[in-house]
């Protein structure tokens, strides 16, 4: 520990910028990893919370895809022995035509039964509307909005709210305002409740429901209730707890998560080479210091541990900085992800706060430190092997690099052969990925030899260009092929990452384009809403004939 303070700390203080650049790779890797995963988790958590809020005390939800299902199903479910309460739901995303407010989720509910599952805590005189559901039902333009939405738009009970419907833009009357909490915080307050039968008419859904929310009797387990209801409704229906909607969302988010994981792994890998390179240079620079320590009685183990501890501290420092940057990235990304997923689901659910998972933090820091320590192993070994006699002789240089060796070239050849086999079977996806990794490994194994050959090749050119500086520069590369190859490998991996990501993007674009060309050949599409995945309205049957 004292050696760290006396030797390593002094060196780090003298080379602050270099140390910071050394840790940059780790910072980048950890930041991308933490940022992307935290953003995903935060948005997912916010979305799940929204689902929970909308679901109230619903235990099971019955759905049948986008077209919905007939009203008769409700009666069958309500009559089931396991069911305590079953209420129909119709969900529709509509444009409010209020400046800057975007879409509003309309929840069509049956006020006569829905309060068995959801709380509608209304403020002021608005309570009447729900105290007597008949008043609410008798006025099909009735709407209950949330307090945040009302405050943002200066709406009060009795205010008119214009919205796009099947019958064109229509004005609705605010009959109640829900107080804070529960439903009101779903989708940032962009949620309104109206009578389901009025919603059916306004949104052209005929006599169909989107969903039935079910509360089970006290002694019925979730599995038993699910099985009993599935038996009653038959095939074509999904009976799932509300949390499963979050899983669907999670599956979408997992694609971004996968891409970010790959990117961060590459960044860490590149960081590893940068650290290796810096430590290899440091060992060369500190040869005299190592020689003095060895002469004064430091064992090889003490020297090795010193360098490994330095790399571990570098990794820890990089990981902690990466964590900080990761949180900043997560904040920025959570907003983008919310918008992106909002486009898919019709509404934007902002992650109000970044939820940091302690396991993710521990994992990221551990990976950062391990990466750095792995990068430090070879330089630490080189440092421990420094011959004190030669290190202390002024003017004598000890070649730390052994150059390319036969074992490495044979290993590269084996990797190339295995890679070719994997590519041959590339239709099987794991084989393709294995082939990719083997190709990268082969390139890494060959990089010292390649660096050496290229350095020798360019020596005459450099010498011709600048007789003194050129020769010295080329000789410096030739004398330290391992160190040179560290830089080459880092650059190679960076380029490989850029090219492979660009390749993936291009291939996805091309395959999507060719699929669109083959599968979708109409000149025009006429749809009922902006979102392809979430339809607000359904065309009346007559519209086909009209078109």
């Amino acid at each position, binding site marked *: 520990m*004292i*050696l760290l303070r*006396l*030797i390593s700390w*002094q*060196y780090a*203080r*003298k080379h602050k910028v270099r140390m910071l650049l050394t840790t940059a790779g780790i910072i980048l890797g950890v930041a991308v990893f933490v940022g992307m995963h935290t953003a995903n988790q935060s948005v997912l958590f916010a979305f799940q919370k929204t689902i929970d809020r909308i679901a109230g005390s619903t235990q099971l939800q019955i759905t049948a895809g986008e077209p919905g299902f007939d009203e008769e199903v409700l009666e069958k479910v309500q009559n089931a022995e396991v069911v305590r309460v079953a209420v129909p739901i119709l969900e529709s995303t509509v444009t409010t035509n209020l400046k800057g407010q975007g879409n509003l989720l309309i929840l069509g509910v049956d006020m006569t039964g829905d309060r068995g599952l959801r709380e509608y805590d209304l403020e002021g005189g608005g309570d009447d509307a729900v105290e007597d559901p008949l008043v609410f039902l008798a006025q099909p333009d009735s709407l209950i909005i949330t307090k945040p939405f009302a405050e943002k738009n200066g709406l009060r009970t009795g205010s008119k709210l214009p919205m796009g419907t099947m019958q064109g833009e229509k004005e609705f009357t605010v009959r109640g305002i829900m107080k804070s909490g529960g439903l009101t915080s779903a989708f940032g307050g962009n949620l309104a409740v109206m009578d389901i039968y009025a919603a059916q008419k306004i949104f052209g859904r005929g006599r169909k429901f989107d969903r039935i929310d079910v509360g089970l009797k006290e002694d019925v387990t979730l599995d038993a209730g699910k099985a009993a209801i599935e038996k009653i409704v038959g095939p074509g229906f999904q009976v799932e707890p509300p949390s499963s909607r979050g899983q669907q969302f999670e599956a979408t988010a997992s694609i971004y998560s996968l891409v970010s994981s790959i990117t961060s792994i590459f960044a860490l890998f590149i960081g590893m080479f940068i650290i290796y390179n810096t430590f290899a240079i440091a060992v060369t620079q500190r040869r*005299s*210091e190592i*020689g*003095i*320590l*060895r*002469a*004064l*009685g*430091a*064992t*090889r*183990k*003490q020297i090795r541990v010193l360098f490994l501890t330095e790399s571990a501290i570098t990794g820890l420092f990089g990981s902690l900085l990466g964590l900080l940057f990761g949180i900043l990235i997560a904040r920025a990304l959570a907003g983008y992800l919310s918008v992106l997923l909002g486009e898919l689901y019709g509404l934007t659910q902002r992650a109000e706060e970044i939820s940091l998972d302690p396991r993710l933090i521990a994992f990221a820091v551990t990976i950062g430190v391990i990466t750095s320590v792995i990068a430090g192993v070879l330089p630490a070994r080189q440092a421990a092997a420094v011959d*004190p*006699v030669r290190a*202390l002789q*002024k003017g004598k240089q000890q070649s730390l690099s052994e150059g390319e060796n036969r074992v490495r070239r044979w290993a590269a050849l084996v990797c190339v052969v295995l890679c070719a086999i994997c590519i041959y079977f590339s239709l099987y996806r794991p084989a393709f990925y294995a082939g990719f990794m083997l190709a990268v490994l082969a390139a890494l194994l060959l990089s010292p030899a390649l660096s050496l050959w290229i350095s020798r090749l360019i020596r005459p050119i450099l010498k011709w260009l600048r007789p003194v500086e050129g020769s010295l520069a080329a000789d410096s590369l030739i004398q330290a092929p391992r160190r040179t190859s560290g830089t080459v490998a880092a650059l190679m991996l960076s380029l490989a990452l850029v090219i492979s990501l660009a390749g993936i993007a291009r291939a996805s674009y091309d395959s999507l384009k060719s699929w669109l060309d083959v599968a979708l050949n109409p000149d025009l599409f006429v749809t009922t809403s902006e979102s392809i995945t979430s339809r607000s309205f359904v065309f009346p049957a007559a519209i086909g004939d009209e078109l």
Partner: protein
Amino acid sequence: MIDLAKVSKQFEGKRKVTALETIDLHIAKGEMVSLIGPSGSGKSTLLNLIGGLDKPSAGEIRIDGELLSGLSDDALTKVRRDKIGFIFQFFNLLPTLTCVENVSLPLHLRGWPRKKIEDRAKELLGLVKLEKRLDHLPEELSGGERQRVAIARALSVFPPILLADEPTGNLDSTTGIEILKLIHDLHDRLGATILVVTHDRSVAESCPRTISLKDGHVIQDVRR
């Protein structure tokens, strides 16, 4: 204290170079011996072998009765740490450490308690008359002062053997005489076995015994 029996050292390379050939030597406890010879005579190689920094190609070396041949690197390091102090021509102080820290370094490597280390380092710097330079960096010191710090560091554990490789070689003559006087003074006070490598005849002759080397052979062993 130091025994060499038929010690040879060859350096492998494009051409094999024989630095030392069948050296037999005995240096008794408390002796102060100078080792003199022209460049390439093998004196520094001999010093490195005695100091356990290098291994002989043939022959046996015993330090305080302990046979060095066959010892592992760690065991050799331990011998070096506990029994030998080095003084180098170019001081070899760590430039980022203060005088106290430089002197403390060997004691830290031995795992001494921090308080004891500080007391010992100050005591040693007092011994070499540098008590007022405790927190100075090497670059703030003159050549002679730097060599004094290096001597204090070599004495940190009061080793029984002190090996000095051209201790005055990098100093002007006045400072060189001063340092040599200090080494003699420490020898008298501490009674350590001291081996001084030099190419300076006056330095060599100041020691009670002088061994002359040429082309890897002992050509003269003079006692005064």
